[in-house]
């Protein structure tokens, strides 16, 4: 494994529906909580190193490295159930909020081709995964636990059934893994947790300290990178030069987010950082040409052509009637769209607008 540690001078932590708890100029310790999640299934955010807060806005917190102390480890061993889960979320593990979980699936299949982080975790961090898995079992109290792995992986976790799942995209995505394990589409009371979250929980249990690093695929290997490390620095320290018009992608090429600036930091959901040299944007503002490629490729058996056309013209109720909520955002429609329409963006727009309308009408308080 590549053990080069990244000691960056600054860290930028991306806020994703988090409320910042710090102000500019404030001195912080390593592991101090700097933002709380406003989403029930999300973990809080902590400082990856001691320093002072340089910049705070609703989207990011930037910290400059200075000397300082580390927070005291938390004691978690006597906790269980929802109490443990809540405590783990406070320490930065993104554990979904669920009342009842009958089947817990730990997804060890890398979601997209080219990603190696889950495979590397299985190969190198098995002890931590074991701790994390037992913490999750104590927290969610499921009747059954299954570890889904791609073919060729020999590692396993004690007392956990192993299910080999195809890693042909999109079979590694959570809903399809749930189907492969249970044999049922969208089964009730089933929770799929990504292996990186299991690893985060394991680290918290082992050290008592909040999540401060994650496994990230860079180039052709995966290594632990501390949260908030600027993506530009990760790539340049790997020997790459960033040119005008390039894009830096956090995550896989089909589902990942493009970084807004090279100083944007790695967050817990980042499975890969890659540089794509491609001067023209993939998507264009074009009308649907009705070729039907997306309809035939959609693993959720939807009609992305109609959904995106409705979203394009603001007819979100019709998109809802076309079952836009079933979409698990694999991005294949946009990959195969010969008109190069921004399919996934239209789908996300429709979902977002529908959730907003529901929240406003008071039918549901959760998005």
């Amino acid at each position, binding site marked *: 494994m590549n053990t080069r540690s990244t000691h960056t001078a600054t860290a930028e932590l991306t806020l994703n529906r988090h409320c910042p708890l710090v102000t500019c100029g404030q001195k912080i310790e390593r592991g101090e909580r700097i933002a709380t999640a406003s989403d029930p299934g999300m973990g809080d955010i902590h400082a990856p190193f001691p320093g002072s807060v340089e910049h705070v806005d609703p989207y990011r917190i930037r910290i400059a490295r200075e000397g300082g102390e580390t927070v005291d480890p938390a004691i978690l061993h006597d906790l269980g159930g929802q109490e443990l889960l809540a405590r783990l979320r406070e320490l930065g593990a993104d554990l979904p909020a669920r009342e009842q979980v009958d089947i817990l699936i730990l997804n060890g299949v890398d979601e997209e081709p080219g990603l190696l982080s889950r495979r590397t975790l299985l190969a190198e961090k098995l002890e931590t995964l074991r701790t994390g898995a037992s913490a999750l079992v104590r927290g969610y109290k499921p009747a059954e636990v299954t570890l889904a792995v791609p073919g060729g992986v020999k590692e396993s976790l004690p007392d956990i059934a192993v299910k080999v799942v195809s890693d042909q995209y999109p079979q590694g995505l959570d*809903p399809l893994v749930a189907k492969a394990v249970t044999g049922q589409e969208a089964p009730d009371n089933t929770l799929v947790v990504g292996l990186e979250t299991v690893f985060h929980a394991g680290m918290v249990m082992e050290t008592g300290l909040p999540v401060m690093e994650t496994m990230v695929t860079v180039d052709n290997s995966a290594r632990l990178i501390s949260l908030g490390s600027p993506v530009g620095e990760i790539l340049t320290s790997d020997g790459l030069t960033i040119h005008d018009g390039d894009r830096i992608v956090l995550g896989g090429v089909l*589902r990942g987010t*493009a970084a807004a600036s090279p100083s944007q930091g790695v967050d817990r959901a980042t499975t890969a950082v890659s540089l794509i040299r491609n001067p023209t944007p993939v998507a264009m503002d074009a*009308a649907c040409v009705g070729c039907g490629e997306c309809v*035939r490729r959609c693993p959720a058996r939807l009609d992305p052509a109609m959904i995106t056309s409705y979203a394009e013209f603001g007819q979100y109720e019709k998109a809802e009637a076309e079952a836009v909520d079933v979409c698990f955002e694999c991005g294949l429609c946009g990959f195969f769209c010969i008109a190069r329409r921004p399919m996934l963006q239209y789908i996300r727009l429709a979902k977002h607008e529908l959730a907003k309308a529901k929240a406003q009408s008071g039918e549901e308080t959760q998005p």
Partner: protein
Amino acid sequence: MKPLNPFALTVSVPPHRHCGTTVRDRMLTILVAMLPAAVMASMTFGMPAIRVMALSMATAVLAEMACDYFMDRETDVNDFHAFTVGLSFAFLLPASAPWWLVAFGSAASIVLGKMAFGPLGGSPFCAPLVGWAICRISWPSFMDIDASMLGMDLTYPLAQLKNFGLDAVQITDTRQLFLGKQLGGLGAIQIAGVLLGGMLLVMRKHVSSIIPVGVIGGVALTAFLFNWIDPSMYASPAFHLLTGSTLFGAFFLATDGPSSPNRQIPMLLFGLLVGALIVIIRIYGIYPDGVPFAILLANLFTPALERIRPKPFGRR
């Protein structure tokens, strides 16, 4: 403050890669696929065929540009769709078609078949067939292949079958039919060329094989049924497949994206419907070659066929 970066990143939504195929690639591949038939047509009919094809394509492109100009829209002619519409329309005409007929039909294909329904993708009918239907009904004598090609020593087997019965058909050798030694739409009857191009489209995955298979299966099945009832009166499946524009329709016209269904089962039903209608129109209709009207009729069924769809993932 750190200095501003010397570069600007591209920010876009996922996916960050693309399969690489664009509308332009697809249309260019369709044009390449039509090339063998076009070459065979020029060899069989000479300059008149080249004249019709060139005029039809030029009119289609100009008509689209004019529409875009009057609709105050940026033109998309560089995606080559107008070229494919123009060439498909020319493929259905007799080589002797007068210039005004070619120009009018080609322009009508673009204006009424495509531009009236917004940009590419909105049209409920296969565009070249709209122009063909207008011309066929308005100027039957000029569109009548038998009457307008008296100078050729080839014969139009479908008209012979329609007018004089099965015994009168002079070309019964399937090899002759296959090599295009017959009359009909100038490109559509170049069976060998059309088949080669169709294979290219299917193999390069620009066209799903389901619709062509459905059409060919539908023609073969329906023709076989009639032939089985009375072999002395109804032609064999091979005859129906190798005459007129059956194969051209199967590979190039019925597969038109916006006017055909998108899912597998509706596509197959659509193809079978086209195939059955071809034979039924040829037997009971007044038009010798039923292909264009069969496809136009089946296009009307597309919205109904699209309603046959699986339940979305996880819905019970």
